[in-house]
């Protein structure tokens, strides 16, 4: 009779079997010794509804047992953990990651369409995996992953693995008392938008409240506005480690455009980088603001004020450069003045900048 699991594969959804789960670090927990059970065709995938191999383990003491919720195919298609459906690289919701990396994914959501799509993906698994690799790994090494890196957590968030709230305790009827493995805590506010999340919405990257919250946080992050005065092409750089030299800075900043001059003041742990073109300076500011780390320290990038290094954004007490003698409109034009005024003045200025 054609009733065994293996019969009638033609144009049908293949049941999935796997050897090892695709799971992120937080879901696995803090204990390096884990015992995991494997159940072939244990449950239906929450997204594509095919039976798949379910892995189940305990992510640490006093944690609830976690198991894989979606099948490996679905998790490959989005490059996410099988249990928490967060990105494997950044640990961020699919919606945020796709927005930042500008990935447009058209996985159909309705029944037969979805089955057909998944079926095609499964039938040529190698090709699928190559496509996925190109999509998520080649792109994310580019520039747009900066936002994602800033939003990503640095340490694992084990609170996700805690047991659910004891609903009996909430009603006052928990008879298990001390022995109860569920949490005896106040449940989260039902008005909180984070409390109604839906696995399908989270997977397709639509309507995800966590993503919305992160986006608000992202837009609230400090941004560096270019100054109105269009002739300012100088960037002030703070928190410069003492051993960083002009050349180090030049090596980094030359990629944004031609540098007019670099001056660094190791005593004040700051430096000034001036570009010839304003556009280059803006690009440099965008790319390095809050992201550039040199010598182990994150550099504090700000715009310089007015032409010349007269007043600076941070405490100006010890650092006020002498007022520019008349006849000098911009330090950049020093070259032509040098020839007319002689070397003496130029040397004096130089020594003041790079003391």
């Amino acid at each position, binding site marked *: 009779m054609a009733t065994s699991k293996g019969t009638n594969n033609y144009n049908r959804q293949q049941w999935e079997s796997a050897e090892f789960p695709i799971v992120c670090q937080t879901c696995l927990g803090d204990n390096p010794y884990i*015992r995991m*059970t494997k159940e072939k065709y244990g449950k239906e995938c929450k997204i594509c509804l095919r039976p798949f191999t379910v892995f189940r383990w305990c992510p640490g*003491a006093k944690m609830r047992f976690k198991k894989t919720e979606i099948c490996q195919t679905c998790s490959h298609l989005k490059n996410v953990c099988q249990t928490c459906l967060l990105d494997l690289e950044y640990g961020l919701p699919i919606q945020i990651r796709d927005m930042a990396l500008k990935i447009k994914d058209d996985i159909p959501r309705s029944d037969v369409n979805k089955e057909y799509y998944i079926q095609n993906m499964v039938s040529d698994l190698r090709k699928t995996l190559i496509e996925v690799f190109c999509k998520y790994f080649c792109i994310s090494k580019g520039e747009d992953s900066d936002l994602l890196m800033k939003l990503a957590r640095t340490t694992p968030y084990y609170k996700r693995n805690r047991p659910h709230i004891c609903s009996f305790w909430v009603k006052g009827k928990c*008879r*298990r*008392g*001390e*022995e109860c493995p569920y949490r005896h805590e106040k449940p989260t506010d039902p008005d909180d938008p984070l409390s109604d999340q839906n696995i399908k919405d989270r997977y397709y990257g639509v309507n995800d409240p966590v993503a919305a919250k992160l986006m608000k946080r992202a837009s609230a992050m400090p941004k560096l506005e270019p100054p109105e005065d269009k002739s300012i092409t100088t960037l002030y750089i703070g928190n410069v480690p003492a051993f960083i030299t002009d050349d180090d800075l030049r090596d980094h900043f030359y990629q944004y455009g031609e540098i007019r001059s670099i001056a660094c003041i190791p005593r004040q742990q700051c430096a000034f980088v001036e570009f010839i073109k304003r556009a280059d300076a803006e690009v440099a500011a965008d790319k390095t603001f809050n992201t550039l780390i040199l010598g182990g320290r994150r550099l504090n990038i700000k715009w310089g004020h007015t032409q010349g290094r007269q007043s600076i954004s941070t405490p100006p007490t010890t650092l006020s450069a002498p007022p520019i003698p008349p006849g000098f409109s911009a330090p950049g034009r020093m070259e032509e003045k040098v020839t007319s005024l002689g070397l003496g003045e130029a040397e004096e200025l130089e020594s003041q900048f790079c003391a």
Partner: protein
Amino acid sequence: MPKIRKTKKKAPEGWELIEPTLEELEQKMREAETEPHEGKRKVEALWPIFKIHHQKSRYIFDLFYRRKAISRELYDYCLNENIADKNLIAKWKKQGYENLCCLRCIQTRDTNFGTTCICRVPKGKLEEGRIVECIHCGCRGCSG
């Protein structure tokens, strides 16, 4: 109605001394069997059965091995009539298993990873002052 006898033989001497207690335990068992399951977990409904079964076997075991108050004949009679569980008593004679709650808790084939039940872990080894009630028989720790 009086309990069904397995063999045709009459009870040996000394039976009348232990019969009232055994009858009481039987009565408790019948009550446990007919209790409604409301308000209890699925597994919790079976715990009294295991508890009373343990109590019955314990009574006979204590009478013979500890207090030596009954004869070998009477003891064998109780085992043959299945008043006490002879497999459970066999475990009680082993070192470390003197207080074993039930036979399910040492059955490694029943667990996912081939271990015994959590109630078999001595309280000293079980850190964090954790209270456990094993799912098989509701035992809170039967070793150590």
